[in-house]
């Protein structure tokens, strides 16, 4: 009797839990309807093709006139497609570079864009502020190819502005001129500068908008209490920006194993001698696989980058959740 009661209760509990979703669906019909278009798009655009990750474990070949026939007839090869990555003695170098660059980009990007956004908001003069904001955006419009030519026009050892005009003008002798494209040590700084220059304006916009969305009443109240402007920034602006900073950083962490191909390939001109400091996973994959046309190995590379990023972002999300569940991604 006793036991049957508990099972009954258990069942009842379960069924409540089971009907939970349907119940919610009914209760929040409109909310679900509002989600529907976006869900439909990502189902088609992202989730349907996702079965394609299986190609990473296949030796993909062509057998007939149809993709599925090719797919099912292709042999399973386990992790073989991932080997080109472990086969290289450079695996450590490229992983290290990818992570360190991304780390630097995330931190510097965050600090500079938040800083710029805040002081843009403080500047007196509506039009100058708007002008600064608009001009900061300009580098974003220049394609990496154009940027790479600009960098080359600056740094080229034969014709570059720095070596031909600037440094000689400052009295540097011809022998002491730096060989920009021959010295790997300089590139971490050059690439970080170029990346910051290109994206600060873009990243800044989010924070500028977030500040614009802050309720002015907060500041008015603080003013009445006699708080100075810097105190207001510390106690109102920054805390209210924090959720956005956390989210954007978490999202960026998910992509730390990817890098901007244009930056690392075009801007560096893929110069071999710089490999120690410019080699990242994406350019390595490109250099290694370009001539192979291998669908399997290409998806293996992508899957590896995704998985690593996924693990990182799940763990960071967990930490954020522990500290403040409201700021977590999910």
């Amino acid at each position, binding site marked *: 009797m006793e036991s049957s009661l508990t099972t009954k209760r258990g069942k009842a509990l379960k069924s409540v839990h089971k009907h939970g979703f349907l119940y919610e669906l009914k209760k929040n019909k409109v909310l679900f309807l509002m989600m529907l278009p976006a869900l439909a798009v990502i189902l088609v655009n992202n989730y349907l093709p996702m079965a394609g990750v299986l190609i990473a474990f296949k030796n993909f070949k062509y057998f007939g006139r149809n993709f599925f026939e090719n797919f099912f007839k292709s042999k399973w090869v386990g992790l073989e497609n991932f080997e080109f990555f472990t086969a290289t003695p450079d695996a450590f170098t490229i992983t290290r570079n990818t992570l360190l660059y991304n780390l630097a980009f995330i931190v510097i990007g965050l600090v500079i864009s938040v800083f710029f956004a805040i002081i843009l908001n403080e500047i007196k003069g509506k039009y100058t502020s*708007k002008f600064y904001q608009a001009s900061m955006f*300009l580098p974003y419009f220049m394609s990496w190819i154009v940027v790479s030519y600009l960098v080359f026009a600056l740094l080229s050892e034969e014709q570059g502005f720095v070596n031909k005009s600037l440094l000689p003008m400052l009295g540097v002798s011809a022998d002491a001129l730096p060989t920009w494209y021959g010295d790997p040590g300089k590139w971490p700084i050059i690439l970080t500068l170029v990346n910051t220059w290109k994206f600060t304006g873009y990243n800044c916009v989010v924070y500028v908008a*977030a500040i614009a969305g802050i309720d002015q009443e907060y500041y008015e109240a*603080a003013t009445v209490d006699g708080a100075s402007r810097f105190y207001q920034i510390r106690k109102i602006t920054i805390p209210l920006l924090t959720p956005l900073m956390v989210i954007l950083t978490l999202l960026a962490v998910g992509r730390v194993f990817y890098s901007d191909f244009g930056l690392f390939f075009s801007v560096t001109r893929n110069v071999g001698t710089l490999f120690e400091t410019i080699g990242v996973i994406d350019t390595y994959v490109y250099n290694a696989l370009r001539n192979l046309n291998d669908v399997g190995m290409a998806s293996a590379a992508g899957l590896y980058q995704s998985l690593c990023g996924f693990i990182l972002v799940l763990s960071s999300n967990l930490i954020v959740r522990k500290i403040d569940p409201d700021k977590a991604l999910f």
Partner: protein
Amino acid sequence: MKHNENSNTLNTVSPFWNGLFHVIFTLYSLACIIPLLLVIGVSFTDEKTVVTSGYNFIPKVFSLEAYKWVVKSGDAIVRAYGLSIMITIVGTILSVSIIAMFAYVISRKDFKYRNTFSFIVFFTMIFNGGLVPWYMVYTNFLHINDTLLAYIIPSLVNAWYVMIMRTFFQTNVPDSIIESAKIDGAGEFRTFIQIVIPLAKPGLATIALFQTLGFWNDWYLPLMLIENAKLYNLQYILYKTLTAIQYLATASNMTQGTAEILAKLPSETARMAMCVLAIGPIILAYPFFQKYFVKGLTVGAVKG
């Protein structure tokens, strides 16, 4: 009166800091504008002059050759411009509406499955099935290749922007407002349109700006999904020209017989001309978004 003065000084930084900020931004703006001026300068310079005497802000020998070469047949470029503008406008409006609706739902603290659905969206940012299955969905399943839909549907939802928008809703729209709207008997959708949207304007303007740039700058979708030359957008025409320049400029003996094409190729200047052509309209659109980023929005004002 006194109180007012006091609040004014407290509400702004001191002249010293204000001056310093101006200096910082002036320098930084210059660093951003000067390269663009250089690009414009080079684009109007004669190709040979560029190779022999390098980049200059003011053309030593003025030439429109690069633009003529890029534009080649005028009508194609004009059509592509029109198409790009149309796709950008329609795409942005659709996309921002879809993203905003979704982000709003998952921003609601009283919505039980908000984390599940956040995760569903976030997951797409990390994992993808690779190019081939994606390509097949559009060509074999939806059959929207070679139509204008191919420009729009794949970019409608972007996980990154959904998350940004969610955060904007969370921070800018107090729960209490939604609660009170509910108590007043407003339906969910009406609450969203009449109360939530106005509060989230800066956030909406941000993702609208990003999506405008995204649709405008897109060359990848037409590269994969469009074959009909009448449906090319501007960026794709520029992209094709650019890669062909890159390719022809470096291809060795592989492409025999391309002598005549090479002879006419203004590679250095054409690259810059394309950059200028692509920036033009989008720079004009920027102020439209910018007006939503200025401070001064108060929740109270909306409430009243």
